[in-house]
């Protein structure tokens, strides 16, 4: 993507100088203004995120091709056939054959060029990857997520491997995951509809009260990334962020060991608020 729009950075600098000439840059919080920097999406940290990026780019190239055609027609015809240059219009009325041909060719070109291709690719990705849920024998990390106004709660099964028991590791706005291992989420909401969005993994799924939605991915890079709520959930919707920290498998195991120990020590088995989880099925 940056390749296509890199050309546009020239325009970015023009706009930038325009801004400063009308004195608006004084308002900028951030003075380093590379406008077209943002044509790069957040860094992809998942195994399958490139499928989505690839489809996005393919669609972009197709779109640019068709839009350039439209623009050639639009600007070209307006210029060539301006009434000062072309005094008498070409009369086409009743030329049915040309109409039928044009309409058919356009319909088929668009259908094959864009629609059939991208929906087939998207369909296959969906079927083979995104809805191909990890099997138990692949030992995915299982996590239960509950969204509420305005926080994310995460639950790991704890040492006994059973959810909603007193040794569960429960965190708020703090999700830690291993890389190179499949992660499977079950997500619900306590109150209103939220949406669990990890931009770096290119994935999101709604968290809905009364329903459990699922999501899986596999990450490739250790680091710190944002988790946000993408669905309007009230006044403080914008504050509903959590952080995702990814570890190498060894680091993850050592963190999990400590967290499990801590959970056994600090979880109060009498506290009913601890048991918001559900039985994993």
């Amino acid at each position, binding site marked *: 993507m940056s390749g296509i729009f890199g050309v546009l950075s020239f325009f970015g600098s023009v706009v930038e100088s325009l801004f400063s000439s009308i004195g608006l840059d004084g308002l900028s919080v951030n003075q380093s203004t590379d406008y077209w920097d943002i044509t790069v999406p957040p860094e992809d940290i998942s195994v399958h995120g490139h499928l989505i990026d690839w489809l996005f780019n393919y669609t972009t190239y197709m779109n640019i091709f068709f839009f350039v055609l*439209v623009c050639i027609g*639009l600007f070209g015809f307006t210029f060539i056939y301006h009434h000062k240059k*072309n005094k008498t219009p070409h*009369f086409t009325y009743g030329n049915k054959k040309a109409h039928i041909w044009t309409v058919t060719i356009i319909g088929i070109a668009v259908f094959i060029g864009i629609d059939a291709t991208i929906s087939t690719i998207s369909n296959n*990705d969906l079927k083979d990857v995104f809805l191909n849920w990890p099997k138990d024998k692949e030992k995915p990390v299982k996590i239960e997520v509950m969204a509420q106004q305005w926080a994310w709660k995460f639950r790991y099964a704890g040492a006994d491997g059973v959810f909603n028991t007193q040794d569960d590791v429960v965190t708020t706005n703090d999700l830690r995951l291993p890389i190179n291992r499949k992660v499977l989420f079950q997500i619900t909401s306590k109150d209103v509809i939220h949406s669990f969005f990890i*931009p770096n993994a290119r*994935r999101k799924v*709604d968290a809905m009260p*009364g329903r459990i939605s699922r999501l899986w991915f596999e990450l490739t890079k250790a680091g710190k990334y944002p988790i946000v*709520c993408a669905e309007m959930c009230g006044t403080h919707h914008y504050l509903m962020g959590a952080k995702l920290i990814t570890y190498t498998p060894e680091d993850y195991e050592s963190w999990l060991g400590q967290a499990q120990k801590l959970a056994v020590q600090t979880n109060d088995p009498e506290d009913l608020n601890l048991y918001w989880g559900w039985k994993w099925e």
Partner: protein
Amino acid sequence: MAFYEQHAHPAPKTFLSKYIFSYDHKVIAKQFLWSGIFFLGIGGIMAMLIRWTLAYPGQSFPILGQLLFPHTGGVVPPDTYAMLFTEHGTIMIFYAITPILIGGFGNFCIPLMIGCRDMAFPLLNMLSYWFFFISSVVLLSALFTPLGAAAGGWTSYPTLALTFGSPGIGQTLWYLAIFIVGASSILGAINYITTVITLRAPGMGYFDMPLTIWGIWMTAILNAIFLPVLGAGCLLVIFDRVFGTTFFLAGAAATTGSGDPILYQHVFWIFGHPEVYILILPAWGVVSDLLSFFARKPAFAAKATALSMVAISVLSILVYGHHMFTTQMSPLLTQSFMTLTMTISIPSAIFFGNWLGTIWKGSIRLDSPMLFALGVVFVFGLGGLTGLYLGTTTTDFYLHDTYFVVGHFHYTMAASVLLGGFGGIYFWMPKMFGVMMSEFWAKVHFWISMMGINGVFMGMIFVGYGGMHRRIYNPFFYEELRRLIPMNEFVTVSALILGAAQFIFLINFIHALVKGKPASDNPWKVGTLEWTIPSPAPHYNFKEIPVVKCGPHELGNPNLKDGKDFQYQTEELVKV
């Protein structure tokens, strides 16, 4: 073909019967137009407040800010921000675009362009406006309730919109207002459909109607089918909020039984997706006609354009699920909705082919309505193509509920419809008010608007792809989004330019009304029926009901005599 004759009644004399409770379609059209422009202004100011907050969070809004939010020193507070984007969406869709394009042009153009004296049901027509008026009072009154107006987004999804999520009465009033405005649209729609079917002038077949009428007619059909669905949904939420039923309640608050909030999304989007086409179809119709009129050439494959409109109207019913890909519908539904969504690009592409075919080898006059029509082709191209990313499920996983979506639907629903509407206003101004607007300022208005529109919405598409999600008060709370600050500033400055450009239109419009140049009967030299009568259109339109003998786009026929390059629809078709 006129099924029956409408008699010409004497014109009403009193102020009330002439201007307020008028049965005359032209007066009702103007009432809708005034109201629409008023709400366009309100919705526009809201948009400016929203944009300012996104680019300069924590800084006071210039001039108006101190007045509106004295307790925060002019900064928009977060709860008000939520109200602003909710009301902006609602007002622009139901109270600005709907009255201008459907209420205004629908009422004005249908009888004049199909050659009848008034609508089939003048009383329903008047009621349609007054329902709209009551509804807008209800909507605006919500702003003055203790907890403020609705703040759950224009979609107002339960369970956020139920009492525990939005305790204020403002949310109930929002549903009530939408219910009433739905009733208004249904009354209008029944009227339009009946008028088009029963009152076309003798000799006028369906394909002899101008494409504007085709667009409005399809819109009316979709309105009549789907606004009742929205009304039912709103009523059910009102039951939930007021009478304690639990149609949409779920989660921890559902202590006495639970429903399903997803049900509302289905009800909302089976209305909501056709609504997109309800708004855009009249603009498509107007553009198809204007391109032909100003290229002085018959509309290329007008029949295919009309049939594409029908195809899109039918398809629009079958694709609504693409708004709900992230709610995890069954894979079968997801895949079907994706495939059906993709098929919409076929009729859309046919539009583009026909539009370009129309201006191909024409003799193009770049008068202001033509500029706006060409502008629609440009921005709708961008809007339509960006829709492809959202129609494929996997890319939607990333882009759903980001600014990409906001940019996309503003390109289609705001930019195209607004430009189409302005084109229509500049074009029919002579027939509506009997005056011409200034061509020069119309062109200035066009070019500045065009720059503003593309700056705003292209910018939104870029920040959305950069990962900024929707409806957030302060995006820079997230460290990762801070790199988008410059682009957000660019979008806001473009929005301010776009907003400022509308004052050019407003001044031009008012100046024309007060002391504009009187218009001739047919200033644009086109042959549809409304141009056969004096400007402004007299009471009861046609002294004699015209007899139609040819199609609406008979321009540029080389065999026409007397230096004329067009013929009226009432004239016998000159053989080629």
